[in-house]
């Protein structure tokens, strides 16, 4: 079956009574920050100039990781030891 995804009509939103959920979930793609892909096309070039570029890129990556770690710190559950110890499930399926 041929499915043409571009020709699909936009789906209509129907209220679910939970409009409040949207802003949190609704990190629309356009609002997302773009993080450069690792191992991308730009490998920093060669030579001294390339070395500087690489160092700069390394610094940027570190800053990004630092920012991520800070964000995680804000939301990570406290009392991790207690928390993971108490997470016990019954087997399923």
């Amino acid at each position, binding site marked *: 079956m041929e499915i043409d995804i571009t020709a699909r009509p936009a789906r209509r939103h129907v209220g679910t009574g939970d409009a409040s959920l949207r802003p949190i979930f609704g990190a629309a793609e356009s609002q997302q920050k773009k993080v450069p892909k690792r191992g991308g096309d730009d490998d920093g070039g060669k030579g001294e100039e390339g070395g500087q570029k690489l160092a700069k890129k390394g610094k940027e990556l570190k800053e990004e990781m630092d920012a991520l770690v800070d964000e995680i710190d804000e*939301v990570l559950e406290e009392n991790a030891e207690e928390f993971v110890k*108490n997470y016990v499930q*019954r087997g399923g399926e």
Partner: protein
Amino acid sequence: MAIPKVMGTELEYGITVKGDPDFDPISSCVLLVNAYREDHAGEILWDYDQENPLADARGFQVDGEKYTPNQQENIARNKTLVNGARYYVDHAHPEYSSPEVTNVRDLVIHEKAGERVLEISRREANALLPDGAYMLLYKNNSDRKGNSYGSHENYLMDRRTSFKQIVEHLMPFFVTRQVYAGAGKVGSENRSHPCDYQISQRADFFETEVALDTMVKRPIINTRDEPHADREKYRRLHVIVGDANLSEYTIFLRNGATALVLSMIEDGAITRNLSLRDPVRAIKDASHDPSCTVELQLESGKRMTAVEIQKLYLEMALQYSSTRSLDPITKDVLRKWEHVLGALERDPMELEQQIDWVMKRAMIEGFMQRKSLDWDSPQVQMLDLQYHDLRPDKGLYYLLERQGRAERIVTDEEIQAAIVEPPVDTRAYFRGMCLKKYGPAVFGVNWDSISFSADDEPIKRILMAEPLKGSKVHVEELLQSSRTAAELVKNLRA
């Protein structure tokens, strides 16, 4: 010629309640599922008459008691949603079975919509809990203490393809596809070798190659033969080997590559014998090796890495596809499959925005480095668990997504719409639209039937043995011309 791969997923979620010393998983699941309200809100039974989970694909019926709850319990544990999904209590877990879809893009949309349905219900349920108590849900597969719950995939297959052939050609694929389908786990369990971090949530739990069981002695290939469709024409391959994935890219590739391989099996296009000497051991060896370099022993005597085995499947898939006109989604699956296997060979960490187990690992390692932690640290175990947390503001997968660190496949708008709209091109459309339009008259539902109780007449059950019929094209006019369920039944008979 392979039949269209109609598919869906069934996800069991982890559940816990904080601040309630009397927490009981089953009553919490019932509370959760019933906290979800849709407009049709009728009391609809799940129609167990149509079920037979004890039929084995190898051609026999297993002894055992079939579960059939009484009516009240049935209604309390089962919800059929207007998007065509089933949302219910399965043992001690809430479970979301997506509606049937025809392509992996729709599959991603509906699996992600399921996450939101669970999160909406969680918030509603919290309002009903005692002060200070709150519920948490996790889209994962293990509590890291030896208890596992499943994420199952279903694919429609041609009954004419022998189950023996399916097993033979699928086993090496299932053992190795975790390299791009794993959700990642800190440590090991179920008496498996100790390790810091492994690729799959589930690999430690597989103890046998082929069997009907899903709860004990879990098999890599499950033999449940319950097609939920015309038995003579179809089988439903019930896949239990997978992990619960959060990454859209991972879900897309997981189901996309699998559907393609199944079509190839139907068309006799698996031309290589890649049988492994010991699949149960190999699935664990591959999982315990995040460098993706460990070699697995083939029956032929050769040794290959999981990525090399996957590359051979890809090579056969490219050859298979070269003689066919492909839809854009399948083309995209092939492109992504090729890209991912290349990256896994160079450096798996290149996939830190695409593949769940790599995304999780990169996040944990970044955190460990900054905080000088090691793999045994409770905080590291917390990061693992919280990656799967369904709360948009707390779940670490969602945090990565907001940060632009998760490559998307679909849009938030599409996911949001799928909470209340069924797919248009399968029988899920008919199911969902009947609930929207004739909700109070619907008496019972199963995947392949819907029954109405209208105007004191005897209950009428409409059978839907063809998963591709009941689509919008087929039934839109019928639904428009039937104002009531009684008229619908009359028009169907005409």
